[in-house]
């Protein structure tokens, strides 16, 4: 038997129940058992449902924007509506979709499973965070119906103080959503510190968890500043306290410091969990030990830290002191180094692997393609003199869609397909999965590549009307976005279909090595029937699957009726 785990521990092993009768899905019944569940898996699904909903809402708004931009002058909506729609599109996509997306949905579901815990440290707080999220969403909806917001998602003062729209309720929504994000972060940090199973040392943690750990740190340290920023903004509107409003002696550039001190680190809240998913996907589908485990793990922390030092790169032309622009530009580039390290390590992982282009792997490759473009264009706009030309043009719009949509969303889709069998117990259609991935990849590039060109040519962003010169590129982009929408509809169809008609999923369809796959699909109510003991690393792909074991705590084994195997 496996000499590689040559230790004298006496452990027993449970075979995994391939088609379990009792799962977390049928442990309790009724709508209330979902809305008030404290099971992290169900909360993960609640989040998954909510963010999907808001992604579609945000996406439909995006299609409206794109349709309006078919012609240089007004085509379907008026200027005010356009301004409200891009604000809502941005605010919904950022605060209601992408910030909670990977951590709160997939992270919630898999973090405890990957460390062999029964739940997160504070299950009730976890549930509270979802409810707070819903409350925040309701506030956001309220502000939409009571006059919408037309400030852009950045709420720059003094415009946000003077406009007649429902800014206060939107800022309150953001305030509330911030708390939801903080609670998730607290939960993750504590869970990772205190609830790891026996044997699961920091060096055996799947990289997805390292990335969630880094993300949680950013959530904890940055979000409070967002809270105080929007609070001050609301007070500015209600009482005119004059901290950010120049008519009262305040300083609008100070507002931008406050805003970006959160919102730049926030872009790493969005992307770092995506990096985690990619690490899992590349290793599993190359069936190979991850290359540079510590480099990838620690680069997440490095990105999190450096990410706090660069916020002013959004403000090069804002009127901040030139000295700080220079310092910010200098620091900005250093985020590229750890990010590059990750990318190179992933590529190196594929070397001499056994690569299987299943849908999740296709998404991982699409991610590498799109995110590298997004990241390198980030370097472009981080360069001072070039930024002056490109700031607030479509080049920026293209940059951030490449990193957010091409990075985070694509990784989320990869992760969704990867874990779909585990979450639902059903296999999705591999054929349609691959086709859709191709459609989304091509149409995404159609939508946003032209925007780099118009941006460099000088097309400003947040423009309802534009000069005729850009019409061709805009129309191309719009057509791309329609196909993109079609891609998402296709995905919705085959995923929903698989829920009902898909073949039953085995416990470990991809032969992955991390703990989440060492239990049945879908998992039982408490994830594992017994506290698992970790005997191997999360990326030990060099051993054949049949030699894989998950131990259980010895004393527990004495109670049950396990199959005994000695190591």
């Amino acid at each position, binding site marked *: 038997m496996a000499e590689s785990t040559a230790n004298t521990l006496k452990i027993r092993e449970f075979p995994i129940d391939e088609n379990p009768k009792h799962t977390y899905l049928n442990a309790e019944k009724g709508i209330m058992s979902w809305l008030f569940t404290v099971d992290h898996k169900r909360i993960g699904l609640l989040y998954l449902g909510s963010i999907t909903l808001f992604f579609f809402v945000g996406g439909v708004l995006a299609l409206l924007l794109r349709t309006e931009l078919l012609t240089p002058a007004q085509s379907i909506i008026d200027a005010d509506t356009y301004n409200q729609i891009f604000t809502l599109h941005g605010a919904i996509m950022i605060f209601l979709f992408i910030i909670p997306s990977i951590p709160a949905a997939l992270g919630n579901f898999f973090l405890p499973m990957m460390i062999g815990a029964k739940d997160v440290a504070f299950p009730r707080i976890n549930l509270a965070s979802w409810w707070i999220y819903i409350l925040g969403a309701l506030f956001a909806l309220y502000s939409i119906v009571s006059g919408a917001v037309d400030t852009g998602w950045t709420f720059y003062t003094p415009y946000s103080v003077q406009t007649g729209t429902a800014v206060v309720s939107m800022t309150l929504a953001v305030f509330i959503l911030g708390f939801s994000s903080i609670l998730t972060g607290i939960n993750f940090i504590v869970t990772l510190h205190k609830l790891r199973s026996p044997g699961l040392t920091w060096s055996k943690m799947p990289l997805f968890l390292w990335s969630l750990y880094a993300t949680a740190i950013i959530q904890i340290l940055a979000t409070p500043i967002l809270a105080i920023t929007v609070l001050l903004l609301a007070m500015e509107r209600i009482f005119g306290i004059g901290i950010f409003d120049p008519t009262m002696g305040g300083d609008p550039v100070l507002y931008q410091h406050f805003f970006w001190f959160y919102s730049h680190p926030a872009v790493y809240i969005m992307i770092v969990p995506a990096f985690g998913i990619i690490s899992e996907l590349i290793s599993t589908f190359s069936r190979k030990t991850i290359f540079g485990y510590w480099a990838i793990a620690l680069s997440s922390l490095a990105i999190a830290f450096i990410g706090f030092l660069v916020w002013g790169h959004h403000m090069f032309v804002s*009127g901040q*002191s030139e*000295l*700080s622009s*220079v*310092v*910010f530009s200098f620091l900005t580039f250093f985020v590229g180094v750890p990010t590059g390290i990750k990318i190179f390590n992933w590529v190196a992982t594929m070397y001499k692997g056994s690569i299987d282009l299943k849908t999740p792997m296709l998404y991982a490759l699409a991610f590498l393609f799109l995110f590298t473009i997004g990241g390198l264009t980030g370097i472009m706009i981080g360069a001072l003199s070039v930024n002056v030309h490109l700031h607030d043009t479509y080049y920026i719009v293209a940059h951030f869609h490449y990193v957010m949509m091409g990075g985070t969303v694509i990784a989320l889709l990869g992760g969704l397909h990867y874990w779909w069998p585990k979450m639902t117990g059903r296999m999705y259609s591999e054929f349609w999965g691959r086709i859709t991935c191709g459609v989304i990849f091509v149409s995404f590039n159609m939508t946003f590549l032209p925007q780099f060109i118009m941006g460099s040519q000088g097309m400003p962003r947040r423009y309802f009307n534009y000069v005729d010169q850009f019409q061709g590129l805009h129309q191309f982009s719009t057509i791309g976005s329609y196909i993109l929408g079609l891609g998402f509809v296709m995905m919705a169809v085959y995923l929903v279909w698989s829920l009902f008609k898909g073949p039953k999923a085995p416990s470990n369809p991809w032969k992955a090595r991390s703990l989440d796959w060492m239990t049945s699909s879908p998992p039982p109510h408490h994830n594992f029937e017994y506290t698992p003991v970790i005997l191997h690393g999360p990326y030990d792909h060099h051993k054949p699957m049949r030699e894989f074991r998950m131990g259980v705590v010895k004393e527990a084994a004495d109670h049950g009726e396990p199959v005994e195997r000695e190591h």
Partner: protein
Amino acid sequence: MSTHHISTFATLMSVAGALLFLTFLTVAVTWINIPEPFNVIVAIAIAILKAALVAMFFMNLYWDSKFNTVVFLMAILFLIIFVSITLLDTMFRDAGLPIY
């Protein structure tokens, strides 16, 4: 079971005594006029000392897992980052760039 630390009555009382004394001190130093930057420095130094006393002995950081102290210091560290880099803008707005 790890042993939970239980502070003695004497410790708590003497910490409180020290805090009260420092409060008196911080008011008292305003009676003798210390010149401009130093008065702020003294006031903040006393406040930091007081906060440290509270954190270490009332909040038990002194006896606790050191990780909790690290967590708490993170907050301070990032606050310092925030202020100092922002000051880099607000203090140097008219300075322009030194020609190299």
